């Protein structure tokens, strides 16, 4: 769900809960056949970013 601004008003935008067959098939094919390589994100490990909760307590990732 997201919000968008339309004619000066905020309107909800929902993720499609039921896709037509063709799009559902496209989505399933993407899930089945795509290999995602996340190695481009390895730089994050070098940043030494701390994640904390509202009390300042460290959350381990």
């Amino acid at each position: 769900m997201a919000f968008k601004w339309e004619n000066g008003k905020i309107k909800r935008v929902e993720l499609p809960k039921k896709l037509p067959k063709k799009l559902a098939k496209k989505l399933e094919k993407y899930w089945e056949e795509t290999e995602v390589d996340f190695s481009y994100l390895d730089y994050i490990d070098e940043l030494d970013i701390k994640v904390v909760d509202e009390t300042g307590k460290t959350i381990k990732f």
Partner: protein
Amino acid sequence: MKQVKQLNSKIIIPDFLNLFKDGFKTNREKELLVSFIKEHNKSKNTFYVLEIENKSVGMVSLKFDNINTNPTLDVEYLFVHKDYRKKSFACLKNKKISQFLLDFVIKNIAPKIKSLVNFRYLSIYPDKQNKKLIKYYLDLIPNSLLLHYKKENWILLKI
């Protein structure tokens, strides 16, 4: 010093807006954030706020959703303080704030959540359905899928 703060508890709207004081380019941005804070206060999402040198410079809001019955982690809002937009930061390995926030969600938060509760996709609704922003996201997130349905574009990433 840089850190990401996870917020789950109730947020007082003026206090949170004050974190990004003078950070809104338009009233629209502020009003959208208020809408997400209201959702947050109904326990519908979690906020992650990036702080650099004790200043809040950007945030991302995440929630569970589904697309065609597939569980999805939805990046429902990504906001960067206006003074920090379109700039790269050495402390973030020369990434922009928006890029870092998305990368951080994909690299750290999504796998952590998936290890506890299974889901398939990360979803993003590009603000204003802006074509440049859609291209920006598609370039930023390799192997993502652009899904167009009923005049709306969503970007999905297999997690």
